[in-house]
């Protein structure tokens, strides 16, 4: 089957992108190299085409229904705020991790590309009405410390984790790289002029390769790796997202897990060498076994980092990894990778 491409595919092709299959999509992996793009986002500004992600428009009449499906308090956060949350199933396991943008007149829900059709079915099953705007719009993430000063002549900049809109754009000061920036939803006919504006400002296109190394370095989980339908937000060390005080799907299980503390647990690790403990690598801490969910090289820390899912809470920080037959030592990290 032919892979889906975004509205900006010809732009990517004419900028010599290397493509990678990501679920049903063919997306740019890199243009000038993953490490170079990583560096651009950490030090100046880069943009990512993330139009493969979903964009669902939801009316406030649906707020209570949708609130019963997520672990965070969408009802009481102020207008014009963005919210990271997790859709849970009846067992409290993660169906998807998503972003909500609250505007005065509507809510925008952004599910992961790989979960968009699942979330649409899930909403339909629970009688939540929505309008799918994914095919009519593009989604561009502009990230990096220089982003705001580069785009503030065209966009009114909201506070961090807040939303704003103009005639043609809806956007929020959010991202997935650990850097300041905004994510912009634009109608398809505005896409080309938006990209031209970014290029004119010297903001460079970046691919999914650097998006992955950036999010990992920023200690952010990726659905399909850290999060699956086999893990709860508590187990994924995302208990901070559980702010919904009403009952929601699977909330009993999450409460029980928080109370008794006896569950598997996702941890972050570093390895002193540059040898990468990749997904599925086994790591043992004391007598607790773990499996790496994501691992890569951190350009900023100049060592290997990753997430590992342990069967239970380890009692020590030392991890012994079996990397293709070699025993390599690593350490559990309880703070964020980047301060």
């Amino acid at each position, binding site marked *: 089957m032919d892979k889906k491409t975004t509205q900006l595919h010809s732009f990517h092709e004419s900028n010599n992108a*290397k493509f990678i299959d990501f679920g049903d999509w063919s997306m740019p*992996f*890199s243009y000038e*190299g*993953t*490490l170079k793009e990583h560096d651009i986002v950490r030090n100046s500004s880069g943009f990512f085409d993330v139009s493969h992600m979903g964009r669902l428009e939801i009316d406030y009449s649906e707020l209570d229904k949708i609130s019963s499906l997520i672990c965070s308090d969408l009802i009481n956060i102020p207008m014009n705020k963005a919210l990271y949350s997790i859709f849970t199933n009846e067992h409290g396991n993660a169906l998807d991790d998503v972003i909500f943008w609250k505007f005065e007149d509507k809510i925008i829900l952004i599910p992961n590309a790989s979960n968009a059709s699942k979330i649409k079915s899930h909403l339909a099953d629970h009688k939540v009405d929505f309008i799918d705007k994914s095919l009519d719009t593009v989604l561009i993430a502009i990230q990096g410390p220089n982003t705001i000063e580069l785009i503030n002549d065209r966009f009114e900049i909201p506070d961090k984790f807040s939303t704003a809109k103009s005639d043609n754009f809806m956007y929020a000061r959010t991202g997935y790289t650990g850097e300041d920036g905004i994510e912009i939803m634009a109608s398809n006919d505005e896409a080309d002029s938006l990209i031209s504006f970014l290029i004119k400002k010297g903001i460079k296109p970046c691919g999914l*390769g650097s998006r992955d*190394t950036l999010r990992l370095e920023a200690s952010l989980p990726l659905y399909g790796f850290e999060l699956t339908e086999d893990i709860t937000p508590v187990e994924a060390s995302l208990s901070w997202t559980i702010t919904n005080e009403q009952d929601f799907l699977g909330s009993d299980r999450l409460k029980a897990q928080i109370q008794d503390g006896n569950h598997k647990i996702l941890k972050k690790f570093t390895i002193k*060498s*540059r*040898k*990468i403990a*990749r997904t599925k690598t086994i790591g043992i801490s004391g007598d607790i076994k773990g499996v790496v969910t994501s691992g*890569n*090289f951190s350009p900023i820390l100049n060592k290997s980092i990753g997430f590992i899912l342990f069967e239970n809470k380890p009692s020590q920080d030392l991890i012994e990894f079996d990397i*293709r037959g070699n025993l390599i030592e690593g350490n559990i990290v309880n703070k964020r990778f980047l301060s």
Partner: protein
Amino acid sequence: MSDIKYLETHEWYLINEEVITVGISDFAQNELGDIVYVTLPEVGQSFEKGGAVVEVEATKTVAEAYAPMDCTITEVNSQLETEPETINNDPCGDGWMFKAKVNAVDDSGMTYQEYETFVS
């Protein structure tokens, strides 16, 4: 001294008298993307043709470079330990990986033109 030859597994080698110099091709480094770490063999280690000699860690994936023929390592490019990106920048020059004494000559690699056709 003969010309550089290439293997289907994307290594290049150059035979000079009884010593081969081995690295990976420009195509291979481009496919791998940013190389961040290499595990080099020890001098004196012997490999059979096809044996895995070097492990190459890239941000995208991990790959191995294989011995083009039976050989014993005489020198490794220790610059790669601190600057593995040299392989990306100059795969067939400064990015060479190891030199080895040939134990059984097998000069059956592809010429540059043959390799270009193979990868295109």
